[in-house]
């Protein structure tokens, strides 16, 4: 495991719970990982094909054994096809999430979704305008209905161009056209890509990669972007808001309900239900000091951004939260939920409640959530949690009491008002900061946790190195949670960790050097923030001109592969810790890490050491600054970065 000496996590609360779990004999992800070693290298290199039962076919990476599969597919074809299937699944996951939010908007407009309302009319009307929907003389619901129908049509679109593609700067749209990768329809692009990977269809690795890129773009500029837009319309556009993060947010004498997964639709309703008097009475009658709602993964980020609901932890903390014994209900929806959760909860009063039709667990209570009776479902869940609380063994609870303050709630819209208030909403101070040389640039650091890297270490080390070098960092997902727990999202962090120029910007605006912009579908916010930077002027005409970079220092999921691909294909240099499982193909590796740049302006790099990775990003940002003819940085570079990663455990 790459990382920090003998620790499994750099986060004290997590390390405490890992040690506690070991003492109690709970099995955690790290234990299972150890048991699986050595993992299959053919799988890692992407040169094992199981697409048909002529195989499995494994190509010899050393060129001494089999050079192709039974059908004749080479390592290049196989690696490209494997990547294609991963990206198709990642894109499908974001997009299916997006579809559900759009459908909720549709049902809300139809008056069929109990308890939901349109909270952000401004954004609804902006989207209507972009769609060319006439709004004069129509009531809000009618406008919402037409917007939702139009958006939904993009999921099923069979020809033409995905509507939101028009938000990209024109030079970028032209690049996509030239390369033949302009997304068509969200569902169709996934289906087409899956078809391409069937045995004996698309065999040219580069051609396959272009199809991969099209599907990834229909996630980033389609499914994910719709998820963000329609969540903002339904649940409100986030504004800067205070909260806390880490396991210490759970309270010993409260009914602790942890939401985990990715979709905001139910958790929004849980927030509302937890405030209703009847449900609060139930908790009180059970002797609890109210409810403590907290989140894990992106469901957490969604309700953090809009309501300031605290965060219990990120991806690798899901088992640790359960290990406390203080969680009365863990309400799970979709994506990144460990099947192992059931095992840990078994010996405790904790109830695992699955709410998605799409996701069932053996031995798990299913309270299926449907939008038509959302509030009722939410109340039912909270009632179950109160029952669990009554059975909780107070002695079993071993709660770390640490949690850290943070400020979240940054979006494209709220950055505008953060920088200029009601009357000067502008991106100018950000662009000027870069042009004047106070800010070197902006980095998006996102993604998951991965047992192969000390928990949170990749995120925190990389982000500290970036901000030390005057790079403003925006974050989503579990990466954001990692840095929030490390205190990097407190405004005070500027004084402690930021370079002098960045510190001046943070001081002028009142922000932390690291900004939380939401969940993993909200990476679309980062794309649109880049679009606004281009529009504001002075930093080039395309996203690929901007002094910006992306990274996923502890990534693990297929969604991350889709994200990295669409970000790079949008012109942004992106560094990943683990390599994509394609390294067994020279052609695929070379295209992703070199060839893509000529076609799209962005490409990928793979680097496990977070500090070295940060410097790849910084070098890239410097290169872009130079190409733009920007002035020298206002303040000297800090001391050279420390050496590469500490030895593994």
């Amino acid at each position, binding site marked *: 495991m790459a990382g920090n000496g003998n620790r499994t996590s750099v986060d004290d609360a997590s390390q405490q719970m890992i040690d506690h779990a070991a003492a109690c004999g709970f099995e955690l992800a790290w234990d299972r990982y150890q048991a699986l070693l050595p993992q299959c290298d053919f799988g890692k290199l992407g040169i094992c094909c199981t697409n048909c039962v002529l195989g499995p076919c494994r190509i010899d990476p050393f060129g001494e054994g089999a050079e192709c599969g039974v059908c004749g597919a080479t390592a290049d074809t196989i690696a490209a096809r494997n990547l294609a299937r991963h990206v198709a699944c990642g894109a499908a996951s974001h997009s299916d999430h997006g579809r559900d939010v759009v459908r909720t908007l549709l049902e809300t407009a139809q008056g069929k979704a109990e308890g939901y309302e349109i909270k952000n009319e401004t954004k609804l009307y902006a989207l209507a305008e972009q769609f060319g929907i006439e709004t004069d003389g129509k009531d809000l619901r009618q406008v919402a209905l037409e917007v939702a129908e139009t958006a939904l049509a993009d999921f099923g679109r069979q020809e033409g161009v995905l509507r939101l593609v028009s938000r990209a700067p024109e030079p970028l749209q032209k690049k996509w056209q030239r390369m033949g990768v302009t997304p068509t329809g969200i569902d169709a692009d996934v289906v087409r890509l899956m078809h391409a990977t069937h045995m004996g269809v698309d065999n040219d690795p580069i051609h396959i990669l272009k199809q991969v890129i099209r599907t990834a773009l229909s996630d980033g500029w389609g499914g994910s972007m719709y998820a963000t837009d329609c969540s903002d319309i339904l649940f409100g556009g986030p504004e*800067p*808001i*205070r909260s806390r993060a880490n396991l210490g947010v759970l309270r010993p004498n409260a009914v602790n309900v942890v939401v985990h997964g990715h979709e905001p639709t139910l958790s929004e309703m849980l927030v509302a239900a937890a405030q209703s008097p009847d449900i609060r009475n139930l908790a009180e009658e059970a002797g609890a000091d109210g409810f403590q709602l907290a989140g894990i993964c992106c469901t957490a980020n969604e309700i953090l951004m809009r309501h300031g609901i605290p965060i219990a932890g990120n991806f690798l903390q899901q088992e640790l939260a359960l290990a406390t014994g203080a969680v009365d209900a863990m309400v799970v929806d979709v994506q990144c939920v460990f099947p192992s959760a059931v095992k840990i909860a078994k010996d405790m009063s904790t109830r695992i409640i699955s709410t998605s039709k799409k996701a069932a667990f053996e031995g798990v209570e299913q309270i299926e959530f449907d939008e038509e009776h959302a509030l009722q479902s939410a109340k039912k869940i909270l009632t179950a949690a109160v029952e669990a609380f009554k059975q909780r063994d107070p002695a079993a609870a071993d709660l770390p009491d640490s949690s850290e*303050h*943070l*400020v979240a709630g940054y979006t494209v819209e709220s950055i505008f*008002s*953060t*920088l*200029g*208030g*009601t*009357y*000067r*909403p*502008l991106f*100018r*101070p*950000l*662009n*000027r*900061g870069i042009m*004047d040389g*106070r800010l070197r640039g902006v980095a998006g650091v996102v993604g998951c946790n991965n047992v192969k890297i000390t928990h949170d270490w990749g995120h925190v080390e990389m982000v500290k190195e970036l901000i030390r070098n005057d790079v403003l960092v925006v974050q989503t997902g579990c990466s954001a949670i990692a840095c929030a727990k490390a205190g990097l999202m*407190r*405004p*005070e962090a500027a004084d402690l960790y930021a370079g002098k120029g960045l510190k*001046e*910007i943070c*001081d*002028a*605006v*009142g*922000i932390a050097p690291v900004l939380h912009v939401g969940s993993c579908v909200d990476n679309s916010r980062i794309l649109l923030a880049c679009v606004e930077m281009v529009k504001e002027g002075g930093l080039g005409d395309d996203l690929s001109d901007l002094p910006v970079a992306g990274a996923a220092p502890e990534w693990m999921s297929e969604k991350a592969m889709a994200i990295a691909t669409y970000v790079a294909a949008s012109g942004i240099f992106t560094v990943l810790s683990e390599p994509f499982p394609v390294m067994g193909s020279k052609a695929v590796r070379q295209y992703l890490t070199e060839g893509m740049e000529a076609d799209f302006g962005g490409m990928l790099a793979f680097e496990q050491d977070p500090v070295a990775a940060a410097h790849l990003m910084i070098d890239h940002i410097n290169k872009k600054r130079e190409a733009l003819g920007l002035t020298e940085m206002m303040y000297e570079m800090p001391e050279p970065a420390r050496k590469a990663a500490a030895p593994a455990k």
Partner: protein
Amino acid sequence: MSRKVFSAVIRGAHGFVKEAEAAWEKAVDEHGEKAELKFPETAFALPMILALTGRKVQTLADCEPVLKHCREDLLREVPSDEVWLPYLGHGLDAGAATLFAQEILGAVEHLNGFEPDDGYLGFLSDTAMREIGIQLVDGRMPGFAAILGPAPTDEIAVNTVRELQKRNILIFPVANRDGETMKEQLDRQNVQTGWDTYIVPTGPRTLDAIYVLNWAVRSALTFGGLKPGKFQDILQYSRDRVFAFGITFGNIPDDWYATGAGAILMGYPVISDSDDTPEVRPTGVTTYEALVRETDAEELVPTCIEVRGVKVKIEEIDIPVSFAAAFEGERVRRDDMQVEFGGKSSHCVEYLHMAEMDDITDGSIEVVGADIDEVEVGASVDMGIEVLVAGREMQEDFEGILERQIHRYLNHATGVMHIGQRHLVWLRFSKTAFEQGFRLKHIGNILHAKLHDEYGKIVDKVAVRIVTEPDALKDLMERAEAAYEARDLRLAGLTDEEVDVFYSCTLCQTFAPNHVCVVSPERQGLCGAYDWLDCKAAFQISPEGCNQPIPKGRTRDKAMGEWEGVNEFVYDHSNRSVERYCQYSLMHHPMTSCGCFECIVAIVPEANGVMVVNREYGGMTPIGMEFSTLAGQVGGGVQTPGFLGIGRRYILSEKFISYEGGFKRIVWLPKEIKDAMREELEERAEEEGVPDFVDKIADETVATDSKSLMAFLQEVDHPALEMESLLGVPGSRRD
């Protein structure tokens, strides 16, 4: 620590809003909700609120939503000591709340009968905005400074304003510290204040800063042509076009901070001389840094210039006294006078004419006769200034235009006062200027430098002769007078029919994008500053500039003044918004207006005539609208039949709305114009065959409403009453 700054800003804003709410409630109790709110001499209902919110606040009741907006949307909590939320946007919102609250406070005061203290100007009128504001946005004046509080010493106060004056930067001293103001400091040091000297104190309180800012914001509405409520465009305009900044002396109290945030919102940085002021250096809201500390009094003004990015061309002219436009309004009184030329007791002439390139040496300055060292203090001396100009592009037509600049140039020197023109010049040097070494040859230095500077395109060589020797002076005088006569004939003789081209003026298109002035020999530009010859000269000087020749083309209607070439030009240059254009008609396809007009001609239907009202006239007119209200309807580059913006001398032209009967249609004119132009008006009346006509024109002394106007016109038997119906004049007699 910006947090300290924005905490103070937000506290200060809370204070102002609270004060405004209390004053408003009290006023509602006393006057009722319907009581009218207005500032004097402005067409803009509470200008700042109008500009940023689009709301017209005209009564006390109109204030309520604005105060609510301040309280609920703009005022946030003071940033916490830990885990604070972003405060820049909140601080700017607090700045906006401060501006709105101050404006309401000011307006309520006016309702309660407020008059500014002696020597303070209080609210600044639209006239001041147009006259001075235009110079700010077109770059003639590099910027303005609002100075809060008294300087640490009188000396620093004087030095600071002198440094600013030297750079032609307008100065607004406001606010006080413990009752002490900068104005008092300047008074003690005998520094004259007022528009003439570029030092304009609006008032002794922090609140009085709003009069500077709501004066500045009107320039975006007027010259920028921006619609009220378009706050983003308006604030960007003010940041990009109005080079203003604030200076604060001493520790900054919360109410100054709040006001400063309002200034920063408008894009104006603030420079503090206090050690305690935290800096806000990152840029974006302002062009450069937002809040900067400069504790060295000597460096204060240079720092301001740098931080605001003000473009100042400091004129290096080799003379022993300061030289800048800011000194233009300065008077030299008899007691301060060393010597005078012209006026009552002597003769003074100035004459500029062309010379052949080989005949003169550039920079040659010759004093013919005795200089002024020998004359006794207070003497009146005969003198002549002859300027010889040579240049490949120079033409005789330009002589008058260049000669007219002598007045402006000489006035820019401190201790020099110049009045009049041609052979009616009256020139004085002050004792101080004399003591500093100012002599006759320095007139030459000034004219040589300035003519090259401003007219470099047409001027290659400039030589100056200053003549006091009687015989040489007599010769100069004779040559000059002959030239004046020839020039007058050339100008006076010129009619629209005799030329094939008119000239456009699109100087104001940066403000009113669809407006085109068509300047013909018989119709000057509506600002009064450009006649046909000026435009012609300007075109020569800058062929790509705003004054382009317009070939008249085929005549469509001689009487209306409609030509195909002009139509085409106007259509193309009005962003295809004005399709037909008639030079001589009020009612049919008349000229549009930018907003700079000296006068407005407006139809008075019941009198079958027109009235003409000038910008300086602040009272009511017989059509029930003040100038300011009318101005709002006429400007903006739109054709409004029945209304015209004009230069005042156009009244005297034979082509003055000649299609509708012209001069004899005038039924009402403010007395000031009648008095000032009486002689010329009477001449025109003679020509029109109505010798006693001028006395038949009503003014405000006989009528400010329709009824009394009609009574007067009938009593004097005004000719308009008998003319063809003004509303019935057909669109074209050509057909």
